[in-house]
């Protein structure tokens, strides 16, 4: 199948929000290349007539009643916050609007 290139790895790292160093990109590229080659064999048996299984045991219609359950207190919610202002989580400026 297709080889993974360093450029692809860099793009994937961006998608995954991990700031990889150049060395990391290089070593990952060769490691992933080997891994991908090995795992690509799944295509050998994954014919069009084989359905995909996303859940090991077939369950359906698992619901919760629309009744309020106790929430965390504000202090609990914010206890581990790396940075906060009053009752909100504080983050550095956002570059990209969603």
């Amino acid at each position: 199948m297709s080889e993974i290139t360093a450029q692809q790895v860099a793009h994937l790292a961006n998608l995954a929000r991990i700031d990889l160093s150049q060395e990391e990109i290089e070593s990952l590229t060769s490691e992933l290349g080997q891994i991908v080659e090995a795992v690509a064999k799944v295509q050998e048996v994954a014919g069009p007539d084989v359905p995909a299984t996303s859940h090991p045991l077939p369950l359906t219609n698992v619901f919760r009643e629309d009744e309020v359950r106790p929430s965390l207190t504000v202090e609990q919610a914010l206890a581990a916050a790396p940075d906060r202002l009053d009752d909100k989580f504080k983050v550095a400026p956002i570059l990209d609007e969603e």
Partner: protein
Amino acid sequence: MTDLTRLPAATLAGLLASGDVSSVEATRAHLDRIDAVDADVHAFLHVAGDKALATAEAIDARRAAGDALGPLAGVPVAIKDVLATADMPSTSGSKILEGYLPPYDATVVARLRAAGLVPLGKTNMDEFAMGSSTEHSAYGPTRNPWDLERIPGGSGGGSAAAVSAFEAPLALGSDTGGSIRQPAAVTGSVGVKPTYGGVSRYGAISLASSLDQVGPVSRTVLDAGLLHDVIGGHDPFDSTSLTDTWPSMADAARAGLVDGALRGVRVGVIKEISGDGYQAGVKQRFDESLAMLESAGAEIVEVSAPSFEYAVAAYYLILPAEASSNLARFDSVRFGLRVDPADGPVTVERVMAATRDAGFGPEVKRRIILGTYALSAGYYDAYYGSAQKVRTLIQRDFSAAFEKVDVLVSPSAPTTAFKFGEKLADPMAMYLNDVTTIPANLAGVPGMGLPIGLAPEDGLPVGLQLMAPARADARLYTIGAALERLLEEKWGHSLLSQAPDLSASEMFASEEGAV
């Protein structure tokens, strides 16, 4: 005075119930043992210390007051650091969660507490449960109590080492591709991965949501059953948990101790993972166990599961894909590590990226990138999509096999404990350690790992894996307990009683052929 740390949990529980021993005594004995050996073993990332003693005291007080207590009340337990504990750090073996205290307990932890068990501390693991040796822990490896130069298995090496070093009679682990069963094999202990959905995942830091299960780690099958009974069952907070009413696994284990328990049991040996190509001693002990089962009246049947050849490949697509999404939440915003970029503008995007680069180890990064790739536009069908199809085929293989047999067996791991560093250079080599255990996770069926002897060539533990149809966990306990009894009768003692004496700071492997 009996060394309380040498007792199986069931025995200790009996002494606690009869009042012969207090929970404080039992807890202190284990804390002392941890003090004595954990500097070498490093099974624990956090030891509860005074907190554990306080909990033990409270249980003792309740018992004295005549409160009705559960069968394991007062028994100490170690908890894999993948589980959220509100009063102890929960790091999942990662720097990105160093010191993190969750504002809640995992459901299984809440159940432990409600049943009166005494949490001793949190055990070491491969970072985010990704690994087969615990070498990928961000806090240093755990060492195999049988040989401190060797790995204790992974990702749950800490829990397995804790019980096999007698630091705890029981532990909780998690198993995504073998992380309970493979460490059990290489440390001579017992571990069970329940049917998918049999035990709640709420509060278990997710690795691969469709593969993860929490399960018991112990030294005996009965002990595992007792712990399984505490933690198992439906949890409305986990939408994938089964609503079945489960029978008592402890009772199922006891049923295995009845004479004739193995008579007529059809035991399937899976051709594709029956030991060909495995370490000689592993294959030998496995074959001996089969012979033993047969002498006890079981019927050994060879079955074929051709799709198992693709199991590792499918697993290493499904896991990284789900993990890449599950680990996205580690982003410096609400909890955990925050690292600013070394230079350039400080935007939240760059803080996230710098944090994740600093906080995740190489194996985690590897799998996140691989998973991102497997899901990305243009590659989904070829990789993740195809892997999900292999999963269907593996389920079909299991179904077909279970038409012919009651239980399936294989070695739990292809080799005994390897030395540190031996498999780090080649990720694929490491991944192949899970070749026998992965299929059960993909299919959702339950599996048990129990010790079947020491390999003659190195005197290190060998484990056998039992697998049963989905929801037939009890069957594992009955057959496992029966086999365990046969083996211990043959040996005249438990396997772990042969483990090196760690506190004597002299290590030796068991004599060749001793077991």
